[in-house]
């Protein structure tokens, strides 16, 4: 089962929820930090990162001796990353998405692909024995999506019974890429108008991908009733409420996971996991 933990913006406690869920899941869990621009789940899980792999996008390279400048590649590229101008075929790496269409369509087989490294995957086990992996987008590289895609494809050390994917904040392509193929979207929000606004955007994505969703309200009690009303109206279950508590904030600031700081939350997260599993099993029941 694959659970994505997402939120419309950063700082809602998304990573706190994702890591806590991973910790109650035990050894059968693999946790992926898909926030490749600013991964921080490792700060709370303390894995030993001893696996490493470079990833990137396959960039086309044109063999000038074979190219007849027929223009097929430029025609098929929807990103205008390859252009035929007179007797020259140009590739613009910053525009290329590495989709491979030009290579496949070139009638002269003049194009070969070469890996352009845009990021690195790192992985290993935590002290509790759970598997962790993350992607790191190289500074200056514009495209997070290929790194996320490769992270999700990275063969696990052992077959996980449960996957927890910590999504990047926001509601753009990297979030969509993280949610793709998930069985459940756990959306973390704050009970404020801003929280509600961002929540609606991720709910939109989950709906578009037809992924069942549930909500965690973090810092419960700080805002208004807007999130509750919206969830009731949309039939979105609120699966957990975490009240605003000073000891939690202080523990997180010191790099301790929620469950280390407040072990009394363990049953609540176990119940959360069970509730999600229940919902997924009902959703996909024959």
């Amino acid at each position, binding site marked *: 089962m694959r659970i994505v933990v997402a939120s419309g913006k950063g700082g809602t406690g998304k990573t706190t929820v994702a890591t806590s869920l991973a910790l109650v899941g035990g050894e059968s869990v693999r946790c992926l930090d898909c926030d490749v621009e600013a991964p921080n789940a490792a700060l709370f899980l303390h894995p030993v990162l001893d696996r490493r792999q470079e990833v990137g996008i396959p960039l086309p390279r044109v063999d000038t001796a074979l190219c007849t400048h027929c223009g097929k590649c430029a025609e098929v590229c929807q990103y205008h990353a390859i252009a035929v*101008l*007179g007797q*020259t075929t140009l590739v613009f790496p910053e525009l290329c998405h590495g989709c491979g269409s030009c290579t496949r369509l070139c009638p002269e087989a003049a194009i070969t692909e070469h890996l352009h490294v845009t990021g690195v995957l790192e992985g290993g086990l935590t002290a509790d024995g759970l598997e962790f992996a993350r992607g790191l987008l190289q500074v200056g590289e514009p495209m997070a999506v290929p790194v996320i895609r490769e992270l999700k494809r990275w063969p696990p050390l052992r077959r996980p019974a449960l996957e927890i994917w910590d999504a990047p904040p926001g509601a753009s392509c990297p979030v969509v890429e993280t949610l793709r193929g998930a069985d459940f979207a756990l959306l973390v929000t704050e009970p404020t108008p801003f929280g509600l606004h961002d929540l609606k955007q991720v709910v939109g994505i989950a709906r578009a991908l037809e992924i069942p969703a549930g909500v965690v309200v973090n810092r419960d009690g700080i805002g208004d009733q807007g999130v509750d009303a919206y969830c009731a109206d949309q039939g979105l279950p609120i699966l957990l409420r975490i009240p605003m508590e000073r000891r939690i904030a202080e523990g997180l600031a010191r790099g301790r996971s929620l469950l280390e700081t407040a072990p009394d939350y363990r049953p609540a997260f176990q119940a959360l996991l069970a509730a999600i599993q229940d919902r997924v099993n009902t959703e996909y029941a024959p």
Partner: protein
Amino acid sequence: MKLVISIAGDNLQSPFDARFGRAAAFCLVDSDTGAWTAHANPALEAAGGAGVQAAQFVAGLGARAVVSGAYGPKAYASLSAAGIAMHLAPGNAPRTAADVLAQFQAGALNQAQAATQDGRH
């Protein structure tokens, strides 16, 4: 010689558009006879790579020279590869494509020697 001028309209009297990749349209003029046609810029809706797409389009029109206000790096690389001369009509003064054509014919326009904007296109 076939010349392309970036314009914000659909004829030779239309205002000159100083952006190349994001110009509304291109006026293709025969600088010897003055005969012209207007062509909508297919790159206008492009999410990225507008400069490249516009350059390919202009090359496809058979232009040997362009006049615009600025060229991004990808447009510059593409137009250079196509052997198309890039002329600059500097300043923000409102003028029509016909005014720019007259300046070109008078030899008053310099050629761009490098990309003239950082080109977030």
